[in-house]
């Protein structure tokens, strides 16, 4: 679902097309992209509903496992607060919205573009791709210094697919299910939290 290289490629081609103004202005109209977004969300929903992993996630749900997404949300919120104090050009809600992408860059960048601005959409795209890449590269270090939940929390929504293999390696197989459930819950929460923060 998140084939990062191809997605980036499409984005970069779009930038070049826009930059050299090959594109007719009509394509840029927003109505079109909000219909595409509705379709996308419906399909994403189908994907979640039909995925046997989602069912597993709800069956394996218990108090301790439910806490882990909460750690990630609270930690990301605190981090956003610190960044807000360091970057005075942004409002707290803008930074929080980017943070609440939790690595799910395709969806969060599209949402933030629609709800706030293209500029913040680009920041969301880059920031959330970086979250995935940093987790992929550093999961073993995170597990070593911050405990076995750390790579999961760092991975955010990606802990259910792209970063799941490295997390399982860093934290052990017994954390694979925790990681999966964490990712499923955060993936569902991304559009909800981003919308709540920006409206």
């Amino acid at each position, binding site marked *: 679902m998140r084939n990062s290289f191809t997605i980036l490629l499409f984005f970069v081609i779009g930038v070049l097309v826009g930059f050299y103004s090959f594109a007719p202005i009509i394509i840029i109209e927003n109505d079109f992209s909000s219909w595409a977004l509705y379709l996308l969300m419906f399909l994403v929903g189908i994907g979640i509903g039909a995925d046997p992993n989602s069912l597993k996630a709800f069956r394996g749900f218990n108090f301790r496992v439910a806490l882990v997404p909460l750690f990630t949300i609270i*930690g*990301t919120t605190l981090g956003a607060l610190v960044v807000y104090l360091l970057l005075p050009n*942004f409002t707290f809600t803008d*930074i929080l919205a980017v943070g609440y992408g939790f690595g799910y860059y395709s969806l969060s960048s599209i949402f933030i573009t629609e709800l706030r601005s293209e500029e913040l959409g680009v920041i969301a795209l880059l920031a959330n791709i970086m979250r995935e890449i940093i987790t992929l590269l550093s999961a073993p270090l995170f597990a070593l210094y911050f405990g076995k939940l750390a790579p999961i929390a*760092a991975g955010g929504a990606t802990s259910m697919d792209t970063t799941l293999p490295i997390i399982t390696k860093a934290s052990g197989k017994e954390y694979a299910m925790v990681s999966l459930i964490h990712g499923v819950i955060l993936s569902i929460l991304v559009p909800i939290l981003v919308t709540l923060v920006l409206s």
Partner: protein
Amino acid sequence: MLIVIGIMFLGIVVGYFIRSKKVIIKISDKLIMWAIYLLLFLLGITIGSNRIIVDNLANLGLNALAITIGGIAGSLITAWAGYRIWFKPKERDHAK
């Protein structure tokens, strides 16, 4: 925008009921990829045709990096605390 969330939940319910229809699920997954490609391509066009954003791209990247580091660092700290309190196997006989 709340409509969008409603649409997603509708999709989850529909997806649950058609989960045995593998062909539809497969087509749906393919369509998701293309919808994302299309939307990011459109975002790219909007960005590329906006001089102010293009000239600031490096700056936007740095801001993005700051937000990422903040989010990851915060998550590491809460995950560390949560792990120690609720997950870490108890060491019963360590000397004080």
